[in-house]
């Protein structure tokens, strides 16, 4: 672990040499690497990382700058895209933008890549206004900031409703080597605009992959952003996903996180409500099994009056998997009339599975309605009996009940194809061949 830190620190100079030293971002990167040097990787001693240890994940000789790889064909990646809908696509392979697989645009909006936004002067103002403005200054985020060079760059100007969803997919071919990827996304949605984003990280090899991703999302006044994260990676891939959302007056941000794959998945999600009458909805389904670990760490920071937040996370844990949910709701003194709801329901289906959950309310305003509910339980035996008595085999009956348990989260997914895709993954995860789309 120590070695990886040293390696990162020493390779920073080489990394910066290839970049423009006079640029605005250079200052940010230099500051970030210093911060990383100071903070280091998080350990279990930190309250926020109490239940998740990175020790095993970091104890790898990751390659930081993967070498060029063989070109991928569309057929190689088809399965990992939502391919039956029209969409913009920003596809990265081993950290490099892959133009022949992507579909980007500059017409009326910018759906492109961060490296070009950083290098072209017409984007300077935006970068200066938005880049690294809301991301936390903890070790892991600083590390990403220090090495931030590539990722998606999405800017939707005023009054635009984006005609089709945007898919951002990061592939890792990682031939013969373990790789550390650090993608960086910047998404700015201006007044009255609307956009749907689907994000995915996918490893195509058997090697160990660690992704440390940071996304900054700015929802300006009255904007509507729907964000989907599909996490169904190989078992040897780990993901640390840091997402920071800044919302302005009357904006509406919705995030669905579907965590099924990967060895270790850590979702750090922070939403800052900077105006009045904001809606924030975050939901998640987690279904994991052998040797898997999923940790949801969410923060909703209510700063202004009359805002709502809604959280609903469901988890099903099998084999020796470990689930963590740490949901923090912070209501500042000024944020009167806040309405915050949080639910976390878990089912353990194996004796070796563990769930650690810590819903956390911190409230400094008096005229608020905040509640959280959290349960750990089993499937209803009577319901199971009902199904079995009608001739449904045990496996299918269990699957149906589990699907019913998780379905509440899916009901708010607005893209039917995404819903179908997630349904198929769930059916696959539960080992049954029934279409849930009835």
């Amino acid at each position, binding site marked *: 672990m120590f070695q990886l830190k040293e390696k990162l620190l020493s390779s920073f100079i080489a990394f910066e040499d290839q970049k423009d030293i006079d640029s605005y971002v250079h200052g940010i990167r230099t500051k970030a690497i210093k911060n990383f040097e100071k903070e280091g990787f998080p350990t279990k001693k930190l309250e926020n990382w109490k239940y998740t240890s990175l020790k095993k994940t970091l104890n790898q000789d990751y390659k930081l700058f993967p070498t060029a790889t063989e070109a991928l064909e569309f057929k190689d990646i088809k399965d990992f895209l939502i391919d039956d809908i029209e969409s913009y696509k920003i596809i990265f392979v081993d950290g490099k933008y892959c133009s022949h697989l992507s579909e980007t645009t500059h017409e009326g909006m910018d759906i492109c890549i961060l490296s070009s936004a950083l290098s072209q002067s017409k984007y300077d103002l935006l970068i200066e206004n938005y880049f690294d403005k809301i991301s936390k200054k903890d070790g892991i985020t600083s590390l990403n900031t220090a090495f931030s060079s590539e990722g998606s760059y999405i800017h939707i100007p005023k009054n635009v409703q984006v005609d089709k969803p945007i898919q951002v997919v990061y592939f890792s071919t990682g031939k013969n080597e373990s790789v550390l990827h650090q993608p960086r996304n910047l998404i700015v949605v201006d007044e009255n605009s609307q956009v749907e984003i689907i994000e995915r990280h996918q490893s195509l090899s058997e090697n160990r992959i660690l992704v440390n991703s940071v996304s900054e999302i700015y929802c300006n006044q009255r904007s509507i952003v729907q964000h989907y994260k599909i996490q169904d990676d190989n078992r040897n891939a780990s993901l640390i996903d840091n997402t920071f959302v800044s919302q302005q007056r009357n904006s509406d941000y919705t995030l669905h996180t579907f965590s099924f794959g990967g060895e270790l998945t850590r979702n750090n999600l922070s939403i800052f409500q900077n105006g009045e009458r904001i809606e924030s909805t975050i939901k998640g389904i987690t279904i994991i099994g052998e040797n898997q670990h999923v940790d949801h760490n969410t923060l909703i920071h209510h700063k202004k009056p009359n805002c709502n937040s809604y959280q609903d996370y469901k988890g099903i844990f099998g084999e020796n998997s470990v689930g963590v949910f740490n949901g923090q709701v912070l209501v500042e003194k000024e944020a009167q009339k806040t309405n915050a709801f949080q639910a976390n329901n878990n089912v353990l289906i194996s004796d070796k599975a563990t769930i650690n959950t810590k819903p956390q309310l911190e409230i400094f305003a008096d005229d608020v309605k905040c509640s959280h509910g*959290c349960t750990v339980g089993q499937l209803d035996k009577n319901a199971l009996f009902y199904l079995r008595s009608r001739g449904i085999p045990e496996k299918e009956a269990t699957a149906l009940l589990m699907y019913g348990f998780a379905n509440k989260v899916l009901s708010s997914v607005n893209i039917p194809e995404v819903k179908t895709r997630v349904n198929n993954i769930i059916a696959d995860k539960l080992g049954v061949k029934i279409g849930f789309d009835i």
Partner: protein
Amino acid sequence: MSKYTEDDLKKELETKKYEYGFYTDIESDTLPMGLSEEIIVAISKKKEEPDWMTEWRLDAFKKWQKMSEPNWANVNYEKPDLQKISYYSAPSNKPKYNSLDEVDPELLETFKKLGISVDEQKKLAGVAVDVVIDSVSVATSFKETLSEKGIIFCSMNEAIKTHPELVKKYIGSVVPKTDNYYAALNSAVFSDGSFCYIPKGVKCPMELSTYFRINEAGTGQFERTLVIADKGSYVSYLEGCSAPSRDENQLHAAVVELIAMDDAEIKYSTVQNWYPGDSEGKGGVFNFVTKRGVCGDNAKISWTQVETGSAVTWKYPSCILKGKNSVGEFYSIAVTNNFQQADTGTKMIHIGENTKSTIISKGISAGKSQNSYRGLVHVGPRAKNSRNFSQCDSLLIGNECGAHTFPYIETKNKSAKIEHEATTSKIGEDQIFYCNQRGIDTEKAIAIIVNGFSKEVLNKLPMEFAVEAQKLLEISLEGSVG
């Protein structure tokens, strides 16, 4: 107390001040300030303790020296300088009374002011009281009635001398010396406390009670309570606390250990009303307490607490549900006003099969206070069919206070059922309007609503305590509506 009427309340509300804030001028025998091996040996010597106890203390002290003060709690305060505290203060003419008549009249006066005057309680409630002032036990009543049943109820100091085998076996068995910083400190310097042993199959005929009071300035109170309920026995234990008003902060670091053997039941109720500091947040007691109980098969431990005092409270009465079918309960009301800070809650450790726990916590914050619930429900891999229900409700009065919840839930067994819910809200304007409409002024309306809010917990208190607790709630919230 039991004849408490609305008029009394009105009178009390007018006086507004902390009513237990008097200081009794009793000559006391105080050790020099500071903490060192010599002081510990001196305390032990003063108590005429056997060697094993002195060694036990010194061992704890050595371990304590290696520990550092915890700061994870959601409270802010100036750390007390532990070298500026006197670790022993006893009323000097240490009484060895047989009856109350022999007690220093001034002490009796103190008890009267506390409203738990020993003889009154004796008559009215039939409660056996052990009064601890500045950490020395001064009076234990009803001893004879209890000893007929074989119940041992005496001061810790006495128990060390008369029942060393019991003390030796159980002290530190639930809260080890090294458990935490303040528990270690307590183990090294504790000056007295209560000891209680209920023999097999005996149902204690009356409520046992201890009253703690810090009297002397610049002293810390470190008492140690050990309650042992042998197989199939039952005991209900009450604990009350108060302190005079002082500008500087006083420290109270107690350790309470409960042992409920197979089929036994312990009910432990606390009304904590240490001096909370004045309305500017000056003074008050730091209340850093470690309370824990362990349950055998089919045993039950029930904690009920009403926390209205102390400038800073840091307290987590816990249950280790080790035996099969054991039950743990935690009922709490924590009220904070002005600059008070409370970080309190419980830990329910499910180890045995079919263990059940219930947590009901009501937090009420007013003024500029901060009130946190911090709890842990842990279900181990062997705790089949264990069940937990937790409910944490917070009530905010005014917009300068805060309410926080930090529940931790760790489950390693698939057959466990855990439910947790928490809500935070304020007193509804319509509720107050409804009361106003019926001629109840806002102040009183709030008292009624708060009482209703905390009813589930108040109901769990023994009768005499419930009345006092209700009264305390009203007084501590006095002046919280502008």
